[in-house]
């Protein structure tokens, strides 16, 4: 990864978001969503989603659309429910016994929480990269090839080789691992593992990719590579990304949604959120005046 | 791998049911159960049969006399044993149970005698005991030492307390637990007989049989009698280590360990081969086995086994069973029972 690549990534106005229009802000006690939660051509649309962990109400009545070919950033303080919300989108929360989801989440018009929806193809369509890197304790090759294999996307060894190479290239890991594809994936560094997980996810060719802080363990160069990848993927995919980095959100996303204590506070175009937030809480958060 | 395991499980299950079906149809070996006292003798005969003939070696389980009768009387058919050994005679209740389950024709065979020895280490002089001494030393309740006709908890601490002619050593007797046939025989042959020396206890037999049994058969529990488990070898080892202690065990263990232990005199007779054979040693009991007549022609080797057991080279005066410690019957008794075997003379429950 060369340094000119680094500079070539969009260094979006890092100072711009400070120029909030103060005075006209919505009061911090208003907890209903403001901005534009809906779009005219949604890929996924969530309506009145509530999530409970046992009796803890983790997501309150969130409605949000995710448009075609857009990157939407989910931001908010730690513990506000970003991961929880993201995991609803491919029903990853089903794996947690105590977790209960109400409301509806439509993917191309079909409610994914419908009884007759099969989660296996759903998760093939809606891929996920987790907050903590979690490679399989298998070889690097097998990690990437696993998804395509179980879905029957590849028949021959050559096809598999190709898809593994392509995915690793896209994830920016190929050069580092091409000589040790048969070595365990768990033997990689934290950042490399995260990129391996990304490669594993895109190997299946999902239509929507959910990324939960994919760059939290990465150095700036790898981060830049991932952001580039997100940019590339946007042409064909829809991406939802959780991030703690304002810069990253503003660099990669078109829309941004701000969560706070389980509420979706404000959602709008990334520019608008960072340049002229409408809610006091949003303003506080993006200017780092929280807590 | 998983698939292979499932296959294996299926094979095993198939074998399970196949196997049980197979076992139902035939058994080509004799199945014997019963007393652990007869076990060492029956096994020798069985082994002899297996080695010298083409029949398979009989299988012998040591279940205790009572357990043996239970299995034996459960029914006729290959899943039930053919022969049961017993260190006592069959009870009429057991015979009735047999009859209810279709086991009608039973041949009773007495094979010999077993002596029950009270012994100690041979590093000291042998004791001269009587059955009265044994009763007073070991019963839970004994007649009041002041001579009145009442029972008190056993007050005796040393043998001298029991009988002034005996040495002043602490009463410490190692013996089998209540589940053992040896113990049953001991309380019956030694203690009950000793108790009969007391007139009022003897009278009790007619008046209150239950109480009489309880008095005669209950061994003291204050530590003077120590239950040493079913393993007679253990008793022998402990006696060797502690010359003051006595032990109760079968004659075959004395016979095999004469370098370590000796038998005490009981009523003036020492437990020797001859003493038990001629009946002068009082604490001895007959040993039996019982044969299901219905099986005699079905199970291969039954006739041969009975013949081997009743041959002179087995149960005779110098037979190999006597080498293992069994006391042979007198000649006329041997003749009677080998005649019974030849004729397959069956037993009637009324005789018991």
């Amino acid at each position, binding site marked *: 990864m060369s340094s000119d690549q680094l500079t070539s990534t969009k260094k979006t106005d890092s100072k711009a978001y400070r120029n909030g229009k103060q005075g006209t802000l919505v009061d911090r006690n208003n907890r209903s969503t403001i901005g534009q939660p809906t779009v005219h051509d949604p890929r996924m649309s969530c309506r009145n989603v509530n999530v409970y962990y046992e009796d803890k109400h983790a997501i309150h009545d969130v409605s949000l659309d995710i448009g075609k070919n857009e990157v939407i950033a989910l931001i908010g303080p730690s513990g506000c429910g970003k991961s929880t919300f993201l995991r609803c989108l491919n029903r990853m929360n089903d794996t947690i016994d105590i977790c209960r989801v109400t409301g509806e989440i439509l993917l191309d018009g079909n409610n994914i929480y419908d009884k007759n929806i099969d989660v296996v193809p759903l998760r093939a369509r809606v891929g996920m990269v987790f907050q903590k890197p979690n490679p399989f304790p*298998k070889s690097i090759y097998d990690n990437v090839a*696993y998804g395509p294999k*179980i879905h029957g996307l590849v028949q021959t060894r050559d096809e598999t080789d190709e898809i593994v190479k392509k995915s690793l290239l896209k994830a920016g890991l190929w050069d580092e691992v091409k000589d040790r594809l048969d070595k365990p994936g768990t033997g990689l560094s934290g950042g490399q593992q995260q990129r391996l997980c990304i490669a594993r996810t895109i190997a299946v060719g999902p239509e929507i990719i959910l990324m939960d802080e994919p760059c939290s363990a990465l150095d700036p160069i790898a981060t830049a590579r991932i952001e580039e990848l997100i940019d590339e993927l946007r042409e064909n995919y829809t991406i939802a990304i959780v991030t703690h980095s304002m810069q990253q959100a503003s660099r990669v996303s078109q829309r941004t949604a701000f969560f706070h204590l389980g509420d979706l506070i404000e959602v709008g175009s990334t520019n608008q959120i960072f340049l002229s937030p409408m809610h006091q809480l949003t303003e506080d958060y993006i200017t780092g005046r929280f807590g | 791998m998983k698939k292979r395991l499932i296959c294996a499980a299926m094979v095993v299950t198939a074998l399970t049911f196949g196997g049980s079906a197979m076992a139902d149809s035939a058994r080509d070996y004799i199945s014997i159960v019963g007393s652990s006292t007869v076990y060492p003798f029956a096994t020798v005969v069985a082994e002899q049969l297996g080695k010298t003939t083409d029949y398979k070696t009989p299988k012998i389980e040591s279940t205790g006399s009572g357990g043996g009768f239970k299995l034996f009387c459960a029914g006729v058919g290959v899943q039930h044993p053919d022969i049961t050994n017993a260190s006592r005679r069959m009870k009429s209740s057991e015979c009735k149970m047999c009859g209810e389950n279709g086991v009608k024709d039973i041949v009773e065979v007495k094979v010999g005698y077993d002596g029950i020895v009270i012994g100690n280490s041979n590093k000291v002089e042998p004791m001269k005991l009587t059955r009265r001494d044994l009763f007073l030393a070991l019963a839970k309740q004994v007649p009041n030492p002041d001579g009145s006709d009442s029972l008190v908890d056993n007050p005796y601490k040393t043998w001298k307390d029991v009988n002034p002619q005996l040495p002043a050593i602490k009463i410490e007797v190692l013996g089998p637990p209540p589940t053992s046939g040896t113990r049953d025989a001991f309380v019956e042959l030694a203690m009950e007989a000793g108790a009969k020396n007391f007139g009022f206890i003897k009278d009790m037999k007619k008046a209150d049989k239950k109480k009489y049994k309880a008095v005669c058969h209950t061994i003291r529990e204050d530590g003077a009698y120590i239950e040493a488990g079913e393993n007679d070898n253990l008793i022998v080892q402990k006696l060797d280590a502690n010359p003051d202690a006595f032990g109760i065990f079968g004659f075959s263990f004395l016979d095999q360990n004469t370098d370590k232990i000796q038998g005490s005199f009981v009523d003036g007779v020492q437990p020797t081969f001859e003493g038990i054979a001629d009946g002068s040693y009082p604490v001895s009991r007959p040993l039996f086995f019982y044969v299901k007549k219905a099986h005699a022609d079905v199970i291969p080797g039954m006739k041969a086994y009975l013949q081997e057991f009743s041959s002179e080279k087995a149960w005779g005066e110098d037979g190999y069973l006597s080498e293992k410690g069994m006391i042979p019957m007198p000649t006329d008794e041997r003749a009677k029972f080998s005649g019974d075997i030849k004729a397959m003379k069956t037993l009637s429950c009324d005789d018991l």
Partner: protein
Amino acid sequence: MSDNLTSSIDRHSNTDIVQKGLSKRYNAERRFKFYGIAAICASLMFLGVLFISIASNGYGALFQTHILLSVSFDSDILGGEDLKRANYQGVIKNSLLKMFPEVKSRREKKSLYSLVSSGAAFKIRNILIENPDFVGQTMDVWVPADDDTDMLIKGYMKRDVPESERRLNNRQIEWIESLEKEGRVEKKFNLAFFTAGDSREPELAGIWGATCGSFFTMIITLFLSFPIGVASALYLEEFAPKNRWTDIIEVNINNLAAVPSIVFGLLGLAVFLNFFGMPRSAPLVGGLVLTLMTLPTIIIASRAALKSVPPSIREAALGVGASKMQTVIHHVLPLAMPGMLTGTIIGMAQALGETAPLLMIGMVAFIVDIPGGITDPSTVLPVQIFLWADSPERGFLERTSAAIMVLLTFLVLMNALAVMLRKKFEKRW
């Protein structure tokens, strides 16, 4: 706030306090280490005492006294055409009498004959059946000595005590001593102990029958309890809904693991023997009963192994669209396998040493013939040990210890296997 904290405590005194406490902490550590080492030493010592006492008792059983007889296969003595039923006892007696021609009385003859084992006749029988043309020849054959002779040679029976206190009389000892002088007495490796079935003669008794019985029983137990245990653990841990029923099942499984093993024997008696009518004393039934006994152990160990697989692995697999089944089979099971195998082998080792439940189903029995299948009557190693320990003959004492050594060897091997399997599976990643 944090400014206050650092300024109020002098930097210097802070390090001092740490320094002062340090020696105390190290002392505590040293003490703890010492206790640990002491505990290890104590347990090693007990183990050592156990092993040494068993080995020193059992070592003798690895050798068996043999006597060199010059046997003449005289067809007069053998009598008859049928070599299978010939009078081999007579041949042995004849060759003994030839060595000690002065023995005349019936009683003396008997005590002379009793110097060699009754197995001697079987030995020469086998020789002759293999080589029928030996008839009429004379040859030297090493035959096993009787257990009393064996005990004397091994020094368990003292020669200098009064005659009445030993099982061999003075004449017999004289004969043995003269045989020794001629070099006709020798301790040889006791092959029979490893190849023969049970016997009432210590010198002929072996553990092969019991070993085979244990093998068949263990095979049944392994092939039933491993798949059933793993499958139940997988279902309970991965698929079963968490509700009252699964709680009840879990409590019951944990209870079963603590039930005394004799109870399983009673159950086996009632169900397999009385209800299904399976054969008594068969490894098949033994294996089934021991399966019941080991199942809880395997299920509990397998569940613990499954629980210890990090949930992130499951999420990863589910996240790329693997079905629940695929997730479990491809990812969770391989990771849990070492733990499951360890649990299984521990369960099997327990089962290998079990006698109580086998008592009820008739496997505590005198069985001479080597079992050839899972429905043949047989015993198992611990039962053999139990039966020998209860036998009056002195020779069984050392054989008991030797059998314990064999059993312990198997247990050690199985546990080593468990460690090896675990290493192998764990090393992969």
